[in-house]
């Protein structure tokens, strides 16, 4: 067996947004899946708020406060938008109406779609729904896997606005796997470049020329 991730060392502070950037097949999604417990690590530890999570199940990690929005949305396509959101209220199911209302205030576009089946929404709307459902679980850390993939720019902007607001007001931390440099730079405090399962470089988006520096890690070279 060949290890996919090696030399991964990351500390995530409260209220921080860390981006993970790299070409396809470099281990970005594997990194998030390992954090969520879908792929148990052979070695190393994962700690959250001082407690070890390495041996916790996916369910336990979700309940501890890790919210995951995987690539491909993974909504419940035959449930309505309202039911999808209700299902997200894992922590406080009895007060789901309040939680859903709070989330809908952040993502008002979904208000008009509540009775629609998840599967009948556009790709962008599904992405918003996946994010909203994750927020219904009141996570402390959000793991986002390529949220802009195949999404129209206006919805990408909406996602940026929501995440920025959450970061500012709710002290939520975010790990954002993405190849869209503009999106990453709009949100992240620092960006980790990953190559063949190793974090090879840390980029500070505030530094001048950092975008050009990032491009080489996703295989875009300016001529």
């Amino acid at each position, binding site marked *: 067996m060949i290890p996919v991730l090696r030399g991964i060392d990351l500390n995530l502070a409260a209220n921080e947004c860390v981006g993970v950037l790299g070409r396809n097949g470099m281990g970005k999604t594997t990194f998030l899946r390992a954090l969520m417990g879908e792929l148990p690590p052979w070695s190393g530890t994962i700690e959250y708020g001082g407690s070890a999570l390495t041996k916790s199940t*996916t369910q336990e990690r*979700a309940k501890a406060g890790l919210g995951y929005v*995987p690539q491909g949305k993974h909504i419940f396509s*035959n*449930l309505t938008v309202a039911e999808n959101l209700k299902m997200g209220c*894992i922590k406080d199911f009895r007060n789901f109406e309040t939680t859903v209302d709070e989330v809908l205030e952040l993502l008002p576009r979904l208000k008009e779609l509540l009775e629609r*089946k998840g599967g009948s929404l556009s790709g962008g709307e599904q992405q918003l729904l996946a994010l909203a459902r994750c927020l219904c679980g009141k996570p402390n850390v959000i793991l986002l896997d390529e949220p802009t993939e195949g999404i129209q720019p206006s919805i990408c902007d909406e996602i940026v606005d929501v995440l920025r607001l959450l970061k500012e007001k709710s002290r939520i931390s975010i790990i954002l796997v993405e190849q869209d440099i503009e999106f990453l730079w709009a949100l992240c405090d620092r960006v980790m470049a990953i190559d063949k399962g190793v974090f090879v470089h840390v980029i500070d988006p505030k530094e001048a020329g950092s975008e050009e520096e990032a491009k080489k890690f996703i295989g875009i070279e300016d001529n």
Partner: protein
Amino acid sequence: MKNPVLNISSLVGVIVLAFAIPYFVEAFTVLNFTVYIIMAILSLSLAFVWGMGGIMVLGHSAFFGLGAYAYAIAAVNFGPGWEAVTLSMLVPATFAALLGYFMFYGRISDIYVGVITLAVTLILFNLINSTSGPQYKIGSAPIGGYNGITAVPTLSWPNGNFIDINGMFYLSVGLLILSYLFIRYYLSTRYGKVTVAIRENERRAELLGYNVAQSKLITFSIGGAIAGLAGCMFANWGSFVGPTIFGLVQSAQIIIWVIVGGRGTLIGPILSCIAIQWMTTQLGMQQVVNVGFVLGIVLTIFVLLVPSGLAPLLAKIPNVVRSRLNGKPKEDVALGSPAEEGQT
């Protein structure tokens, strides 16, 4: 069918129809309809486990058989009372819980769950088949091997009166309605929603923090209990249980009822079960076509041409008619979409 008035009127309609049937048909037909209804309870239980819970069970007859045998053995030992009926549900439910524990907490994939359940029912079939000697007894009840248990004491009304043919029919209809309402209620609760969510996307449900294995175990056990209830009624209906109820044919039939009726609906598998059994009886009266051959064709047609099943197809008709009349397309109805359980 989200309209409560329509729901209540449909229920009243079914009760009135069921009440009237014995007055208009002969006793033999009532007897046949009774077994159709009992099998519909069995079909409903698989519709819940497989259609709603997404747990592919190929050997669902195991729970049906366990329920029938549990009732028969308890009725011989303790008499045909509520204890025997309770055991007929408790034994298969416990068996399902034990089996489910190893399958779901062991994270066995869907297809292997199906294969294991099939293997289990065949093991039970062979096990019961090989208990024909007089030494194989539970209490005073001989298991009977391939001869089964004959002269099973049947239930009486609470006032002690014997349940006649019509009474057995009414009781079966009542239990079918109760089972249906119970499942509908369960699916409307939080646990029921999780059940459907797991069927929709197991990984996603787990990532949200739901205990997938526990939820599946509950679904599987409830399904086992309802199948056991059907087994209890079957033992009462014929006053006999034999090992063939664990057999492959029985298991295959239940799957066919659910596929034809529509996986993801509750009404569909009930109606298809009754319709297919009626058709089987009618075909059995002639000598021209083999019944199994016709059933095979019916299954093939549904799998190839109507994979979503009968109920979603029928549910789509009003929308199609409405859109034709209005001259504009209505919102698409996802044929066979399991979420239509709320409508059927």
